[in-house]
């Protein structure tokens, strides 16, 4: 390969290398945002995190769930502030009730919300295309194509929101949100608060909403006209016979694969500009519609009677796009190489519970109990995988409890629902109230690791800290459960495996609803990493090679050539669980082993 190409001079100014989510945060700050709310969810989480770390004057917060975040945002926007609300795609399902009604009154201060979609389901339970939500709610959708545009579009979105007094959806996808690029940034614009005029006809009383119904259509028509000329949509004509209509990150793939084609890059994908689409397609023989996700643009074009287009039939609706995938679909160049698997074992490396994770003991015990376990969304979803295989359903946040109640009705006499602390607060409280109210005898296990682990450890209401790291009221989970009417509540140290097993056994036997709260902070929390961690070690002379410690499934326990367990000293978190299972006390604190 070429190694002697000349490097560039170092005189140009260095722009900031930003994750697109950081660029969104930066744009929001520059746009003068003074209220921001969200609930963690990949790939949206870094937006609020960046605001909290770098731009606290935007008043960022983690809300209880996406609906609450959206409603707080609505209030702040009606009250005249510029507001950013963030969520992953499925978060909008939770917030949909608020989202669907807000466009009727419209907003006062600029209101922009991020819907971070996940084609390819890198870290999600489904692949829904939220552009349909934009269409259903009749709000404009913006789709940037790189990190720079993430910043630029957010700023422009606030002006658009205020110009049309509409909430604006900015849709990202995993590949966009989690790519880094160079971004030119600017200063913050101080935007003064708009006046809030109390207006019951606008902001309350459903019967008056009828009056606003036609306004939604008028606004939509105005937006459609705006879409024809707005700077979000960009035409790059060429004299090629092939044209491409594309949006979002797919634009970048098109530029790689079809560098000579004419391109209409739609930065605003709802409402779509009919004349622009017709005009563009009139200039090319064949037009490819390259949009990740569903057939959203293409269907609209077909409804306009444009028929020299090819889209989903070629490129597909499932999963992520990539330059390789486009090239393959268009039969350009050689086949894209596949992983090497011939005559060699390409072992998978699925994710697993971290070293010292407190969830492990709970799943070991559940496996022993042989009960039906309705699971939920979080790190503990891995309890469904080998070697534990002790979780039988996972749907969406909070679903464990309702599903368990239903399974119980369907004849599973003892069911366990298992849920993380963050998920319990997000969506687990109404179903627990319901379970007690409707006479369920389920056992609910709350995995209280003092954080939202799956998404990278964000605080929540039961941690006692807010997004800015300030101390605040700490929700009492025991009192919360008690208030629903559950009387049998046990709190255990999650690293005491016998206690955990005993508590679960008793709870499952109990003739009525019961709750077990397994407590122990996530090992990824900075305070857990910072604490002095004396590692454990194996005394080989005492080890009988019974393999009990291997059945803890801790990644820090390796096997030596002589078949002994070996605890990696720099990985061990001193959780003690392997020492608890060792029948010959061969696993001890490394420092005491030296003395012995």
């Amino acid at each position, binding site marked *: *390969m*070429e*190694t*002697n*190409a*000349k*490097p*560039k*001079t*170092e005189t140009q100014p*260095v722009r900031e*290398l930003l994750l697109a989510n950081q660029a969104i945060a930066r744009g929001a700050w520059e746009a003068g945002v003074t209220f921001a709310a969200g609930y963690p969810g*990949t*790939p949206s989480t870094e937006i609020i995190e960046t605001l909290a770390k770098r731009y606290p004057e935007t008043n960022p917060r983690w809300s209880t769930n996406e609906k609450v975040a959206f409603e707080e945002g609505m209030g702040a926007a009606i009250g005249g502030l510029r507001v950013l609300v963030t969520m992953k795609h499925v978060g909008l399902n939770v917030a949909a009730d608020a989202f669907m009604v807000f466009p009727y009154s419209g907003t006062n201060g600029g209101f922009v919300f991020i819907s971070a979609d996940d084609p390819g389901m*890198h*870290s999600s339970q489904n692949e829904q295309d939220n552009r349909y939500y934009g269409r259903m709610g009749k709000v404009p959708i913006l789709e940037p194509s*790189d990190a720079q545009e993430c910043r630029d579009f957010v700023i422009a979105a606030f002006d658009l929101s205020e110009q049309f007094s509409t909430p604006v959806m900015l849709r990202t996808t995993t*590949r966009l949100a*989690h*790519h*880094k*690029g*160079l971004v030119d940034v600017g200063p913050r614009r101080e935007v003064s608060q708009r006046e809030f005029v109390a207006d019951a006809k606008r902001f309350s009383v459903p019967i008056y909403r009828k009056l606003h119904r036609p306004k939604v259509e008028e606004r939509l028509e105005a937006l459609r006209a705006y879409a024809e000329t707005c700077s979000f949509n960009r035409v790059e004509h060429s004299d090629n016979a092939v044209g491409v209509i594309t949006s979002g*990150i797919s634009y*970048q*793939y098109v530029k*790689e694969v079809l*560098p000579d084609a004419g391109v209409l890059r739609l930065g605003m994908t709802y409402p779509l500009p009919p004349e622009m689409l017709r005009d563009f397609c009139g200039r090319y023989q064949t037009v490819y519609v390259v949009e990740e996700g569903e057939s959203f643009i293409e269907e609209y074009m077909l409804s306009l009677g444009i028929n020299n287009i090819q889209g989903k039939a070629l490129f597909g609706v499932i999963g992520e796009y*990539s*330059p*390789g995938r486009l*090239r393959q679909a268009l039969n350009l160049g*050689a086949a*894209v*190489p*596949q*992983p*090497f698997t011939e*005559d*060699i*074992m*390409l*072992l*998978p*490396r*699925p*994710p*697993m*519970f*971290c070293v010292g994770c407190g969830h492990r003991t709970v799943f070991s015990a559940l496996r022993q109990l042989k009960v039906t376990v309705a699971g939920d969304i979080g*790190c503990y979803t891995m309890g469904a*995988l*080998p*070697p534990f295989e002790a979780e039988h359903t996972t749907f969406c946040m909070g679903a464990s409890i309702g599903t368990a109640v239903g399974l119980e009705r369907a004849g599973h006499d003892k069911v366990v629902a298992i849920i993380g602390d963050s998920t319990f607060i997000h969506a687990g409280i109404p179903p627990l109230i319901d379970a007690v109210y409707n006479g369920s005898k389920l056992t609910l296990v709350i995995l209280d690791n003092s954080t939202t682990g*799956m998404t*990278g450890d964000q605080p929540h209401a039961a941690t006692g800290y807010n997004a800015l790291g300030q101390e605040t009221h700490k929700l009492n989970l025991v009192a919360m459960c008690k208030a629903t009417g559950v009387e049998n509540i046990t709190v255990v140290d999650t690293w005491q495996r016998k206690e955990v097993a005993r508590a679960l056994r008793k709870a499952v036997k109990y003739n009525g609803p019961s709750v077990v709260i397994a407590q122990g902070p996530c090992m*990824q929390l900075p305070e857990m990493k910072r604490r002095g961690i004396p590692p454990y070690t194996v005394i080989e002379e005492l080890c009988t090679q019974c393999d009990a410690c291997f059945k803890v499934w*801790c*990644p820090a326990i390796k096997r030596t050539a002589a078949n002994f367990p070996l605890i990696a000293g*720099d990985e061990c978190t001193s959780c003690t669980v392997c020492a608890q299972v060792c029948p010959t006390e061969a696993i001890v604190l490394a420092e005491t082993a030296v003395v012995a």
Partner: protein
Amino acid sequence: MSKVYNLMFAGVGGQGSLLIAELTSIAAAHAGYDVKQTEVHGVSQRGGSVETHVRFGDKVYSPIVTPGEADAVIALEKLEALRFAHYLNPTAGVILVNTYEIVPGSVVNADKMYPYETIEYLRGKGLHVLTLPASQIARDLGDGRMANVVMIGALSTRIPIPDSSWQKALHLRLPARYLEGNLKAFAAGKQAVEAEIVSN
């Protein structure tokens, strides 16, 4: 159109492949290139395999590297080298492998199925494989976790980014208390490859 360099970083969650990809991106930006990087977050803390793509050149569109087009694959672990080797440009690219093995903890009997013969296998496929004991080199320098920085020291001999830009990236991105050790790790990686090329 001028050349765009394609790099693929592979490793196991916790090994710091994301960090060295970012150091490379910062160095490339400092050297005046356009640069894009893509990573899939989420499983990195949970011991899964982690891939990060970096592309730099005059103008970069896609952040994604296409299989068969990488100028270099930088693998912090052997099995991950195998997993991402097909990204390599088979005629012009080089795969840099840290000869370190992490047996997947979540797969039953993984130690019996692990592809220990990966290096010979990839060479047998005609790929240009450079191996170096980066974890050992890093441990000898006092901290095995610096294996990732040893690897970019090695990488630096294969791509047109000047040393001053690498130094700048390390200074910008690493906490002061780790800087000195990592500068040594970087230099050691560079030397290791230069020695290995001679022996090839």
